[in-house]
């Protein structure tokens, strides 16, 4: 029987990890923003601002539009949060603690990432607003394009472990981290990670050119929830990347859980910095590059690392 925690413990662990992660994303985002803008960071204000802005949204009325699809609009951020929670539940937090480690954990993670497209599309379609609908369809193109590079970049990490379970993949990195064995894997994974949570340069679903895209009609707690779900997905992607590429809990001196946190934070910083340092990508270019460059690169990565294992 594979390893798993009891339901109560799993909910507690994943819930607190997500809350801490969402707060960390908000703080890191503001910190990097302040550094790039050249303003002096005021730490007290930076640390308090996510809480304060959440309070503003909590006190704001949740408005609706003329003819929305109300159940869809309610379920979209909930589905997104659920998928982020499942994705994080698969990440082993230390040698002994993992919320859920099925024998096909990799497949469950990929399924969670694939379903993000449904959540974002539903979020854009439901308000019956032109800009939101446009963001939803644009994300459809983006999502269909990144699925393959995503899967292939991660698949190479399953080869040395000869297993689809995340714990096995981390265990196989005891001697050498996957980022050293397969150097092309992590950059590819990060590029696609930015695409999955439509962050920064790949923010084509909630873009500035659409006045907020799928969230153009969101207000109050609905807006807060969508932003939190996006950040949660970013945390899940960073945590999974830390596990399958950076060796998870392996590392000297510190306990395993601390290493997981350190590595996740490092990947989070890279992912969030892309939003402040890289300009917007056009959807036509992203689709083309994804199919014509990223997929062959990812396939090359799989076959070369496979050949090296034989």
């Amino acid at each position, binding site marked *: *029987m594979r*390893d*798993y925690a009891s*339901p109560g413990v*799993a*909910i507690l662990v*994943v819930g607190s990890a997500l809350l801490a992660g969402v707060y960390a994303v908000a703080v890191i985002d503001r910190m990097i923003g302040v550094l790039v803008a050249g303003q002096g960071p005021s730490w007290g204000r930076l640390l308090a601002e996510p809480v304060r802005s959440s309070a503003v949204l*909590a006190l704001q*009325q*949740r*408005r*609706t*539009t*003329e*003819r929305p699809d109300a159940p869809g609009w*309610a*379920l979209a*951020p*909930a*589905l997104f*949060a*659920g998928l982020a*929670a*499942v994705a994080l539940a698969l990440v082993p937090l230390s040698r002994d603690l993992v*919320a*859920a*480690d*099925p024998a*096909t954990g990799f497949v*469950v993670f990929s399924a969670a990432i694939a379903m993000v497209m449904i959540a974002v599309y539903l979020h854009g379609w439901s308000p*019956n*607003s*032109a800009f*939101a*609908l446009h963001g939803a*369809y644009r994300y459809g*193109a983006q999502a*269909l*394009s990144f*699925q*393959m590079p995503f899967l292939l970049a991660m*698949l190479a990490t399953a*080869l*040395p472990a*000869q297993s*689809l379970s995340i714990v096995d993949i981390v265990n196989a990195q005891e001697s050498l981290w996957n980022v050293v064995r397969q150097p092309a894997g992590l950059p590819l994974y990060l590029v696609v990670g930015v695409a999955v949570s439509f962050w920064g340069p790949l923010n084509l679903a909630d873009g500035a050119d659409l*006045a907020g895209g799928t969230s153009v*009609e969101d207000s109050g*707690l609905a807006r807060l929830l969508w932003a939190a*779900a996006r950040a949660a997905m970013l945390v899940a992607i960073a945590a999974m990347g830390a596990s399958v590429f950076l060796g998870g809990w392996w590392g000297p001196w510190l306990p395993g859980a601390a290493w997981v946190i350190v590595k996740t934070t490092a990947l989070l910083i890279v992912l969030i910095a892309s939003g402040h340092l890289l300009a917007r990508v056009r959807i*036509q270019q992203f*689709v*083309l590059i994804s*199919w*014509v460059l990223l997929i062959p690169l990812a*396939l090359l990565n799989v*076959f070369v690392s*496979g050949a090296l*294992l*034989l």
Partner: protein
Amino acid sequence: MILLGPLGVALVVFVAAILAALLLRFSGDLSRGPALTIPERAPFAGGEEPLMHAWNRYHARYYVMALIFLAFDMEMVYMYPWAVVFVREGGVAMVEMGMFIIVLLLGVLYAWRERAFAWA
């Protein structure tokens, strides 16, 4: 208590997160203000009056790319078990999957030349 197994626990986490999110979303409605008037519910268009419902038979111009995605998705289904048995099966496994992939990549090349990615 039924023995859930890891997939069961993942499902429990999934449902719990969804319920928590729904609870959070609707919690603000307890202190609801007055009902919204029609102009308060207008979709955003920069200040202009919206002419029509946004829902329409939208031309998702990437439909050709979506068909190619279906083919690759089926390929992924085969790559999952292949990754598990690869080291055990050795070079044969690599050659077989390689041939499969090359056929699919030729399809992508053809689609590229036929400008399937060019609105897209």
